[in-house]
């Protein structure tokens, strides 16, 4: 089992982006790259290879699902897990995200102190 070191965070809300960045950097000791849209995320992935991508679900332009599909299509060799963040917490929606190929779903609002462990618990068994 390999530990994750770097994360690409994608969210259109700058505030949330900042909170999750601080949580992952200071609490989780992770390298964090951020993007404020699906398009920007795809652009960053051409030169960065994060260990995990965290995608907001509701974004203007490409939403989380579309971004996930694009990542899989354009970067088939990039084997990193993708985790969704969403404020839609209905069970049916959660299942739909998992079926779409997400490694896990993090509900908003989240406790930033628990965020890095939550992410690791989702991603690290999946990478194994």
């Amino acid at each position: 089992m390999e530990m994750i070191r770097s994360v690409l965070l994608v969210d259109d809300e700058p505030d949330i982006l900042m909170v999750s960045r601080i949580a992952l950097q200071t609490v989780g000791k992770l390298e964090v790259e951020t993007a404020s849209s699906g398009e920007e995320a795809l652009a960053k992935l051409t030169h960065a290879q994060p260990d995990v991508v965290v995608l907001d679900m509701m974004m203007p332009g490409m939403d989380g699902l579309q971004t996930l599909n694009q990542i899989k299509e354009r970067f088939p060799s990039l084997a990193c897990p993708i985790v969704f963040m969403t404020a839609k917490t209905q069970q049916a929606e959660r299942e739909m995200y998992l079926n779409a190929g997400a490694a896990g779903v993090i509900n908003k609002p989240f406790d930033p102190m628990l965020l890095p462990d939550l992410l690791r618990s989702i991603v690290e068994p999946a990478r194994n």
Partner: protein
Amino acid sequence: MEFPKLPTNENKRMARLRAFKILDTPAEDGFDDLVRIAAGIFEVPIALVSLVDENRQWFKAKLGLDATETPRDISFCGHAVQNAATLVVNDTSKDERFVDNPLVTDDPNIGFYAGAPLITGEGEAMGTLCVIDRNARQPSAEQIEALEALARQVVSRMELRLHLLESEQAIAAERLARKRIERQAECLHRLQIIAAQYNASTNERIDLMIDAGLDLLGLHLGLVAQVKRGRLAIRNWVAATDSPRPPLDKMCDDLWQWMGEKVDPEKVAATADARVLAAQFGLNSPIAVPLVLDGEPTGILLFASPQDVQPLTIDDHTVAEVIADGISAELSRHRVRRTIREEALRERVRSQFGSSEDRFFDTTHEILAVCGFDGYFRELNPAAEQLLGYSLPELMSRPFYEFLHPDDRDQAQSVTSDAMVAGSRTVVENRFARKEGGYRWLLWSLAADPENQCVYGIAQDIGDRKRIEKMKNEFVSTVSHELRTPLTSIRGSLGLLLGGAVGDIPGEAMSLVKMACNNTDRLVRLINDMLDVDKIESGKLQINRLPVDLRKVAEHSIAANATFARDHGVEYCLTEAPKDAWVRGDQDRLIQVLDNLLSNAAKYARDTGKVNVSIEHDKDDWRLCVTDHGPGIDAAFQSQLFQRFSQADSSTSKSSGGTGLGLNISKGIVEMHSGTMGVDSTAGSGATFWCKLPKIAEQPATKPKAAGTATQILVVEDNPDIAHLIELMLSQKGIRCDLAPTAVEAASKLLTNRYCAVTLDIGLPDEDGINLFRRMRARLKERMPPVIVVSATADKGKRELAGNALGIVQWIQKPIDLDLLQNAVLDAAKRRTDRVRVLHVEDDAGVLEITQRQIEKVADVTPARTVQEARLELRKNEFDLAIIDIGLPDGDGGQIMHEIHSSPAPVPVIIYSGNEIEQSLAEMAEAVLIKTKHDQQDLLTTIGKLLDQVTPRDTDSMP
């Protein structure tokens, strides 16, 4: 030598001899004694009871002779029989008839012979009682007389024997007949009891009759199908086992084709013999009987079983016929009643509405319908044509549910059948097909009329309402998302500050941050509650309808809220809780209700000691009460309590942290369980909140889910109360707990057992929990189960490990959040419990067992010993791997291979066979092993390799 001639009455004689049923039967003492006496009288070595049939003499009794028979041509007795008279040959050497007879010239060298005929009936001789000596002799007249007397005794013995035999057979036949009659009587008796149930509907009666048939026949599936609109349609069916229902409609269609699109009584009987059903639909021992109404065969009654059962007898057919008669009679009565009622109904409608009836019926915009309990519309008004586009004959030619949206059919069926049973009124929404495509939303008001076997319905087009509802739902969903988004950054920022992630904060500022954080949490709760309220109001709240034990609900809620209670200076006491307090509903939602009542009691009756919880009988309901000793509630305010945002004292709302929606939601949930909720209180002396829920019959104790080590977790916790609480919380999800109160015990248990997860307390008496975790992780490496830290100092521990918490999947702060704990453990357990499912098709019990033992640690093995069993299993269950033997008792494993191969998601297959395999078959398999070339070990190695490739579906892993 002279051959004996046939007597003139030979045919009659032979018939009579056969009738004695004595030829070729074993020796009997009575006859043996008689020959012994005869030999004694003549003082000769040989005496026989000889019976002469077409071409031999056969000895029923013999003394001094080894042969059991000799040819008739050379027999002495043949001569005695020819004349039906005593034959005495004093000296064979002087008798021309016998002098060169082989029995004289050769063994037994007969010198003297005396034979008295065995005469019965009208003088036919069956044979003789004869005595023989090797030397010539001169018997006295007395000796001959004695021989003849003994011969008569032989005959009477033969007659006696026959008589006995006949009576024994008669008794056996009578016993059989009586049994048959008793069975028929039992059958008729049951039919009478069923017929006497005056309040039962025709359907119920037919079901009961089928049931009685299944019981008497020892079979498991029965159905009545009737010819209806050019096909054989199922009218009733009863399954006595919970095995999956075979595609009965398809079966009836096939039967119909088979019989040449009519009910042909001969073919019906032949169907049972041909066992086509057995082959095609996995059914055994079919009995089919035609149902005859008014002299016309109009349907069939069919019994069968998906299991192997005793072969059927002719008696069973009789039983089936008696049941069929009963059902035919019931159907015929039903037909008569229905005709009479329809006539009466028309008459009534005519008399009530007079001439306005037609105009009323025709001009309304709503659909007016009369639908029979058989599912077919009997009457419809023109509005149906306008709204749906189908013509009335089109609508009336098919059962109504065929027009429903597939997703709405189950609900429609259950609603209407409930209404049919109760004869009640009900309202249901569903989508009806339109001829030009698409569906129309209809709101039905239904009233059942069991007497007339029909449902009256009025349907309104609610398409507009549905569109608005959809918009509103989308709006609520969007708003809740829009609210959560800013809350996420607020809660996140505050959380980082509070957790010290961005440096220390001075005391005063800290308490402000804490307050902001608490209020953010409250806002989140408020949004969740508002979503609940919206779901309840719009009827969108999904409620399970399963048996729920209220006592369990109470125990669970009390345990989960105990800490909260302590903090508020109260204690929950379960004062009365009967064992059989079962209701139908949604356990999680009922827990939500009780949680709400318990936390209210703690908040509003702060520091008052005991809060009593009880479950009491209240006629047909259970009454769940929560009684506090707080300030009570003003009578004036009690009526407003259950409205939204109503808290008795606006000052309490500030300290209570509630949303003001709890009771409103609780009431909604209880009402969705067909219950009521209320409060009894007088100001100053406490309050009792209660909810009443309808009782259901006591449920059989369900065995806890068989849990191997795979669903067992280790609870490392030194406080026995908390350990017990965790155990309680997890037992609800079928997870078994092993407890370890010290680090030493935990370590030894981790080394010897396999757990799917560990809950870990940090403050252990003998070692720090984090230390224990580090130590065990180093020792067990990959075998270390996922760890969930449950501790009052979870935050501190987490900071200590700072990023080195690999293997810790969740940090849970005490007091324990029930959902958090359950979900964390379930997530962790899921990774370990998803086992590979293997179907092993093999008729050799040894191979089955060895394989199962070897792989049971990683796989669940389902054995199948025949092609048929394998088919059933494949239909019932999903598998990740199949191991198939080709030579099976009832067919060829290749058949299964073909079926698997042509299925949409073929299961990987290993062939393990005694014979060489055709190339085409081998190509369908992942591996082919031949029993003579590969041994058990090869099989296990192959399975092992494949199991590594074949992993169970895991939703959490990446594709």
